[in-house]
């Protein structure tokens, strides 16, 4: 009777298991690659067995926090992107296109210059900046009906404006390469404090998104149909916006504005498993984490033995994909 539904859910389960294996292998790879060579097996073993060796010290103080940041930031940005695309019913929506990342960056950089940095103050500034950037783009793009093209244009304009403001602050204050490096989106300097900063926001944000995934799916049917099904539209919009701000703000605060994860991942996930957000959201979290964990490995290889910002890698992967979407977007009206 529910034969096909069963078949689909078993193929989802298969996909989840495969993704999980890729993910765990990625964790091992991420922990093992670096200036000192540690095998994948050993690096995974060090997570559970304490032997006090130098390798273990490297893993537990340097590499593990960095890997975890990759997981949290990747998952957060991907879920934020999926929520944005669902809420605006717009395939080009993502924290980057929506000016959210650029707004958060501007506020964080400004706060670094004006106030001495403590991790929590930069998170708060990131939230405020994310909200400001997102609100500006939303207001411009939604006047007279939001189309993918209008969102992309106004989002890019605001993104560029906010980014140049940020650069102006950096140049005027001669704050040097550190901040510039951070601006590309980098997680190689991450420490446990960063993990503690992002983890609660990431877990709460993604958890809330999963709880309300049914309502997120209903938004895909358009305003009138969703209202007709009894969905409280203002309530769910406000809630989703808050979740997006929490997830992308916290990500920018610890890792800088890493682009393309929020755009790329939800598209791949929807292609693979369909349009239901009760599946799209957890898969996006997993795929986002995978993308960033592997991108972070590549970031170490590009200019070995020097580290490169992981944002460069996601941009290299993401740009062709964005162009593909833009070409396809011509048929989207």
């Amino acid at each position: 009777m529910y034969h096909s539904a069963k078949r689909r859910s078993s193929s989802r389960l298969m996909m989840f298991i495969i993704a999980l294996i890729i993910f765990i292998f990625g964790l091992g790879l991420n922990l093992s690659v670096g200036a000192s060579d540690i095998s994948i097996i050993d690096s995974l073993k060090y997570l559970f067995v304490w032997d006090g060796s130098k390798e273990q010290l490297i893993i537990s103080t340097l590499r593990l926090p960095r890997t975890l940041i990759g997981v949290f930031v990747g998952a957060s940005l991907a879920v934020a992107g999926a929520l944005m695309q669902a809420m605006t019913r717009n395939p080009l929506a993502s924290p980057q296109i929506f000016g959210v990342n650029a707004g958060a960056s501007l506020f964080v950089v400004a706060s670094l210059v004006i106030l001495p940095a403590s991790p929590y103050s930069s998170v708060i500034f990131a939230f405020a900046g994310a909200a400001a950037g997102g609100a500006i783009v939303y207001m411009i793009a939604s006047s007279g009906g939001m189309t993918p093209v209008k969102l992309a244009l106004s989002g890019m304009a605001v993104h560029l404006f906010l980014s140049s403001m940020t650069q102006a602050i950096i140049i005027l204050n001669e704050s040097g390469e550190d901040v510039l490096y951070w601006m590309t989106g980098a997680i190689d300097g991450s420490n446990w404090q960063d993990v503690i900063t992002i983890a609660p926001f990431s877990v709460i944000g993604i958890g809330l998104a999963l709880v309300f995934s049914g309502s997120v799916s209903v938004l895909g049917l358009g305003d009138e149909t969703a209202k007709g099904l009894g969905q409280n539209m203002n309530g769910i919009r406000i809630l989703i916006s808050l979740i997006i701000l929490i997830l992308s703000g916290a990500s920018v605060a610890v890792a800088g504005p890493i682009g393309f994860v929020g755009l790329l991942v939800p598209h791949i996930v929807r292609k693979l498993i369909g349009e239901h957000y009760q599946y799209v959201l957890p898969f996006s979290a997993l795929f986002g984490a995978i993308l960033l964990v592997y991108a972070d490995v590549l970031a170490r290889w590009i200019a070995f033995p020097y580290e490169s910002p992981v944002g460069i890698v996601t941009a290299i992967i993401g740009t062709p994909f964005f162009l593909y979407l833009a070409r396809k977007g011509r048929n989207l009206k």
Partner: protein
Amino acid sequence: MGKLAADQLTLSYDSTVIIDGVDLKIEEGKITALIGANGCGKSTILKSLARLMAPKSGTVLLEGKDIHRQPSKEVAKKLAILPQSPQAPEGLTVEELCYFGRHPHKKLLSKHTQEDHDMVEWALEATGMIELKDRTLDALSGGQRQRAWISMALAQGTDLLLLDEPTTYLDISHQIEVLELLKKLNRDHGRTVVMVLHDLNQAAQYADYLISVLDGKIYNAGTPEDVFTQPFFREVFGLECCIMRSPIDQKPMCLPTGLCPKLRAK
């Protein structure tokens, strides 16, 4: 009294009044069609009856109570609305779409119940979509797609079914496919159907009651025989026409013979 009614309903977009102090009552267990010229406000009335649009003044009454004072989810268990040419994400299957009809019955975090599965299967069966349930919407014909949407509205399990121009953009055979389905749902499953229709002869053939709208007011309402009069066609549509009886079921039909002289002079 009927389940759904409007009392002194006034509707406006911004400051433009579209509907001005209208009273109406939907007959339970019947098919009612809202008719009128383009832009007369018939779709606006339907949206307001489905609480998609708040009235400027007056009330819409569902089971005797103001529809806007009832929780939207509770309303969705009594009344289903299908907007004009609704959009769904590409790649959604018919069955997945149909399950959305169970949204008002679902609590946060709860799984679909056996009742949900039964309702969805019944709705797919009733709309003749059970064989096509695994197709994605973009792989369906216009008529099939509309039937898929109707199956979603049916899965809501409501007595009232409101549809905004369910036959628009469909060719004639698909129009009849949809109208026959609605007639079957009314006759065999007791659904009260309210719809906006453009084709007057189809409205007369399929609806038990017609409500015609002109200049923000109800011009006349009643059975097709009551509504189809020469003055009605002249004043509401500016048409001269010949009113005949269908040779099959004696329902009235109109054959337009030209525009009113008054309009022609314009």
